[in-house]
C-alpha cells in the first residue's frame, strides 16, 4: 500500500515533467509544470517533510506559477503552429540527456543506496524552526537579502523607459 502510493506518485511526476517540456503549447507546458510541482509537494508529504510540502505548494504552485502564467500572457504570438518550438540541437540535446540519464542510472543502481531503508528519525517543524534561527541564521538572513535584491532588480529591469 505504502509502496503503491510512491510509485503512482513517481509515475505522475515523471509523466508530467516530460509533458511540461515536450507539449507544444507553452501554456499547457506551464500547467503541466504546476502538476509536476504539486506531485513533488505530495512526495514531500510522503517523505514526512510536511512543512516543505506546504512551502512548495505556497511558493511554487501559488507564486511562481502565477508569474509564469503572467509572463506567458504578456508575451503573445506563440500559439502559431508554424513556429518550431525546438532548436537545431534537438538530436544532440536528446542524446546528451539520454546518455546522462544512463550514466546516472548505472551509478545509482551499482551504488550503495539501493538497499538503504528509512531511518526512524522524523524531523518536526519545531526542530526546523529552531535550527533555522540558531545554527543556520546567517544563510537565512542572506536569503532575505537575496530576495530583496531580486525584487529591486526585477522592478528596475521591468520598468518602461521613457
Amino acid at each position: 500500500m505504502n509502496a503503491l502510493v510512491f510509485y503512482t506518485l513517481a509515475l505522475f511526476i515523471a509523466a508530467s515533467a516530460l509533458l511540461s517540456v515536450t507539449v507544444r503549447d507553452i501554456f499547457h507546458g506551464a500547467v503541466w509544470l504546476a502538476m509536476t510541482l504539486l506531485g513533488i509537494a505530495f512526495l514531500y508529504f510522503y517523505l514526512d517533510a510536511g512543512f516543505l510540502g506546504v512551502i512548495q505548494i505556497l511558493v511554487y504552485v501559488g507564486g511562481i506559477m502565477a508569474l509564469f502564467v503572467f509572463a506567458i500572457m504578456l508575451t503573445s504570438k506563440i500559439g502559431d503552429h508554424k513556429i518550431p518550438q525546438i532548436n537545431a540541437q534537438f538530436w544532440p540535446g536528446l542524446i546528451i540527456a539520454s546518455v546522462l540519464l544512463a550514466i546516472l542510472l548505472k551509478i545509482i543502481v551499482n551504488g550503495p543506496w539501493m538497499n538503504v531503508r528509512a531511518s526512524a528519525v522524523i524531523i518536526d517543524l519545531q526542530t526546523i524552526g529552531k535550527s533555522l534561527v540558531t545554527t543556520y541564521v546567517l544563510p537565512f538572513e542572506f536569503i532575505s537579502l537575496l530576495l530583496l535584491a531580486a525584487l529591486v532588480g526585477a522592478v528596475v529591469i521591468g520598468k518602461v523607459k521613457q
Partner: protein
Amino acid sequence: MIPLGHIVILSMFVFCVGVYGVLTQRHAIRFLISVELILNAANINLIAFNKYLGTADGLGQIFALFIIAVAAAASVVGLILVIAVYRLKKSVFIDDFNLLKW
C-alpha cells in the same frame, strides 16, 4: 518503506528531462520551466537523503528551503528579463536573444 535508490532514480529522471529541455527548447519561458525542473530534482534528493540518512537537526530540509527561495528569486528575474527583451525585440525565442553578442 521503499528503498532510497528508487527516489534518487525519480529525481535523476526529472533532472535529465530538465537538461533535455534546456538544451533543445527555443522558447525562453520553456527554458525557465526546465530550470525549475532541475532545481526541483535537487530538492527531491535533499529531502529523500534527509529522511533516510539525515541527522536530527534537519539540515536537508533547511537546505531545500533555501533552494526554493533561490529558485523563486531566479525565476522572478528570469521572467522579467524575458518580458524586457520581448518589449525590445518582439520575440520570445532564445535564438533572437543576441543583444550582447558584439
